[in-house]
């Protein structure tokens, strides 16, 4: 009986894996968290990516074929992301991989991509270490914390006239990276560090942390947190009656964030690689298309998905085929005009040249305060 | 629920239709058979004893009657109506109360709560209060301990409490499982006094008891149960005066 069950299972496995589709489309694999606690942001990336594919296919696709997006749930977990990549590469035969959101998951799939010689583009993972692994197949179409810090530290220190800053970050690789980079660059500019604290993702009550913060009496509060944690934190900042200037990184310049935070969002600053209120024609087209499709303005993750897909598709077009090595070379030559500026890659695969913005939330909309191009790291 | 018409109490009557009739009852725990065809009759106003060795199936019989156990086959009729495999609450409502072995009072509830819950199916608060008054009247010691946790009572007091609780449903038939278990002779004697008094008030009693002399002193008839079967059914007096019985019982 069990032999029978096993036999069936194995047979089913072989059968389901066998048919390799005739290549009548160009496949791009996308690994994002669709379940679990970061699913919210993962979904935005997928939305942006889907919009990009729609637009590309409306214009006739690439190489004369439509682009097919194969989406897998990596749950931001290394093992699950590796499973997803194995499936995308072996079963779906994707030409390029995009993903995997969390830096830890991306770190786990990078060797897989390298082994199979499939280009991997991430639009999100920001851990600086990723581009230091000498993996020629890896490209990051995203800012790193260090690059953001470099772009804005001077503006923050000079324009907001901050003397001391308290740093608060979510206790993961991204939050810690943000806090470390910003505090390093701001300290170099003479801004004192009043306090550094981390909190776990999913924390709902920040009063203890804010009590310490109030005692530290900083001029400014730097926060690295995503929508869910960030909105609660900012709300409670107001509830505690704290008056310090708040600025930070995260998907803050979005309608969801402002809606969740309410009037507590007024006057806070956010350094983001993308905001929907940038006034240039390319962006306005993007925002209109995105809003038309999803009834909501794009945030940084929507834009990240959109950009990553466009960069990938353009590279395939330039490569003139789905040969991995050709695509890799084409990716290295990227010069992509995004809604938020131009993307190019350094030799290590780090994107630069696009504009990051500092926004201030006024009247429930993010107003651009400053804009700075993200420069290539030395 | 049906109301039960009572015959005039007649402690020795065996004629006429029995109020409780069990016929060829089979019960099993999982795949282990426990009863292999028990048949017995109880008439209104009687006190009937089930006697026999440990594990013979006396308690199992009571549990099957009160609906705690499912009957594999056979019938249980109460006033002519089949009640086998009905849920316990229906059987309590029909007028059969079961006072289980080892008392099973709720240790973490007060004596008062224990007693009050005995009348769970009675929706009228006044009625419950009246019945509680009667219970405390019958068991004055429980009134003294009304606020105490039942778990802190002595064995005899717990037994009294269990009986008082069972009586709160105003049963027509009271089934008592080993009421003298672990009690001192004086205490046991007290319990049996109570049983006699209850019976005198017209409540039919079905008694499982190991202390055979006490059992026979209370009961008018007795059934001897051995390994899941009834082996003897005789009037108590007959058994009591038969010296062979002692040996038969002791000899299993």
């Amino acid at each position, binding site marked *: 009986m069990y032999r029978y069950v096993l036999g069936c299972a194995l047979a089913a496995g072989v059968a389901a894996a066998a048919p390799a589709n005739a290549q009548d489309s160009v496949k791009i694999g996308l690994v994002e968290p669709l*379940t*679990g*606690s970061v*699913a*919210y942001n*993962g*979904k935005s990336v997928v939305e942006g990516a889907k919009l990009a594919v729609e637009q590309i296919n409306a214009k006739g696709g690439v190489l004369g074929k439509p682009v097919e997006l194969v989406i897998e749930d990596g749950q931001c977990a290394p093992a699950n992301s590796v499973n997803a990549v194995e499936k995308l590469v072996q079963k779906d035969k994707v030409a390029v991989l995009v993903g995997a959101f969390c830096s830890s998951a991306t770190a786990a799939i990078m060797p897989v991509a390298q082994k199979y010689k499939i280009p991997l583009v991430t639009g999100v993972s920001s851990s600086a270490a990723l581009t230091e692994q000498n993996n020629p197949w890896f490209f990051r179409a995203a800012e790193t914390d260090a690059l953001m810090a470099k772009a804005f530290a001077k503006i923050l220190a000079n324009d907001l006239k901050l003397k001391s800053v308290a740093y608060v970050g979510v*206790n993961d690789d991204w939050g810690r990276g943000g806090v470390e980079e910003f505090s390093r660059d701001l300290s170099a500019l003479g801004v004192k560090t009043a306090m550094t*604290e*981390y*909190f*776990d993702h*999913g924390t*709902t*009550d920040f*009063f*203890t*942390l804010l*009590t*310490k913060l109030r*005692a530290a009496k900083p001029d400014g509060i730097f926060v690295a947190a995503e*929508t*869910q944690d960030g*909105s*609660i934190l900012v709300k409670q900042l107001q*509830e*505690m*009656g704290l008056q310090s200037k708040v600025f930070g990184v995260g998907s803050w310049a979005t309608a*969801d964030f402002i*809606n*969740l935070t309410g009037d507590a969002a007024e006057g806070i600053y956010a350094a983001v690689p993308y905001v929907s209120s940038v006034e240039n024609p390319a962006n306005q087209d993007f925002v209109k298309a995105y809003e038309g499709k999803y009834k909501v303005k794009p945030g940084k993750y929507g834009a990240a998905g959109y950009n990553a897909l466009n960069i990938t598709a353009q590279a395939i077009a330039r490569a003139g085929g789905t040969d991995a090595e050709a695509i890799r070379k084409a990716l290295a030559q990227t010069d992509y005009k995004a809604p938020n500026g131009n993307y190019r890659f350094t030799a290590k695969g780090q994107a630069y040249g696009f504009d990051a913005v500092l926004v201030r939330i006024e009247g429930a909309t993010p107003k651009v305060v400053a804009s700075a191009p993200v420069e290539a790291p030395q | 629920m049906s109301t039960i018409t009572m015959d005039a109490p007649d402690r020795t009557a065996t004629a006429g239709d029995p109020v409780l009739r069990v016929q060829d009852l089979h019960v099993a725990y999982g795949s282990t058979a426990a009863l292999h065809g028990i048949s017995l009759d109880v008439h209104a106003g009687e006190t009937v004893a089930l006697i026999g060795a440990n594990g013979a199936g006396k308690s199992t019989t009571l549990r099957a009657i*009160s*609906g*705690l156990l499912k009957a594999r086959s056979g019938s249980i009729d109460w006033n002519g109506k089949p009640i086998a495999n009905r*849920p*316990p*609450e229906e059987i*309590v*409502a029909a007028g059969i*109360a*079961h*006072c*289980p072995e080892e008392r*099973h*009072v*709720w*240790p*973490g*509830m007060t004596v008062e*709560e224990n007693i*009050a*819950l*005995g009348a*769970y*199916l009675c929706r009228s608060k006044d009625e419950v209060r009246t019945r509680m008054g009667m219970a405390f009247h019958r068991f004055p010691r429980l009134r003294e301990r009304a606020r105490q*946790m039942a*778990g802190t009572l002595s064995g005899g007091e717990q037994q009294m409490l269990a009986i008082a*609780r*069972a009586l709160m*449903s105003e049963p027509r038939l009271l089934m008592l499982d080993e009421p003298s278990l672990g009690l001192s002779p004086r205490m046991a004697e007290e319990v049996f006094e109570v049983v006699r008094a209850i019976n005198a008030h017209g409540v039919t009693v079905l008694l499982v008891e190991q202390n055979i002399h006490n059992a026979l002193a209370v009961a008018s008839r007795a059934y001897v149960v051995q390994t899941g079967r009834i082996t003897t059914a005789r009037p108590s007096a007959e058994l009591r005066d038969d010296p062979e019985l002692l040996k038969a019982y002791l000899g299993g």
Partner: protein
Amino acid sequence: MDLFLQFLANGLVVGVFYALSALGLTLIFGLMRVVNFAHGEFYMLGGVVGWFVTTYLGLDFFSGLVLVALVMGSFGWAVDRFLIERVRGQGEEPGILLTIGLSIFLVNITLLAVGPAPLKVARAITEGPIFLGPVTITKMRLLAMVIGVALIFAAHAIIHRTRLGSAMRATFQDPMAASLAGIRTKQVYAATFALGCTLSALSGMLLASIYSAQASVGGLVSLKSFVVVILGGMGSFPGAIAGGLLLGVAEALWGGYVATGMVDIIGFLLVILILVLRPQGLFSIRAERA
């Protein structure tokens, strides 16, 4: 000193919230002994349903709360009758696996239905800080505490003052004796589960109006609630309050004087300590379980 007072106040507020979110589990895990890993999902559903009825049905907060209680009560009843009932009396394992499956199902079906975004639940009153000497607290928090304490007392009253409550305690202390008294134990189990589910959902909605509702919050709530119930002693309402306050204050002080980065470790360390030193919990007397 001022700092300490504020920490203490924060800890007490959060402690009440912890007690509140563990209330349902006190019934289901503490009394019924179902190791319910779907507890956090009941809590989450309270918030999500609360968001739905206040946003789409246009109900005010309190009517929404009542509707959530009704919906989640029926849901809990159904879960017990159709799922838990079938594994009752078989030890912990089937219940654990069943509720793990249920929680996976509920999270993901919610994710499908309302998406992964945090949801904003209407507030009962306008927000505003209150200053008590050196201590800052907010109106909404005070209200939530009041409602929370009221719920805790209400739950306690149901257990100790009503017919159903007596039936519950009787059933959990001795199910056989309960059957013999005419209590329909299956109904009592289902009612208890429904009550537990309702309490979880109410606290979910209440706290979602202060924080936010989201499909994925359940896991953390489950874990913290287990901590609270174990700390307080299984099935004890006063214990749950004490356990919640202990956890809240311990976390606040640890966060305040050590680091906020790993406050979650406190609860688990306390659980390990308590279980090793005093397995029946801090505030439980063995004989009385309700």
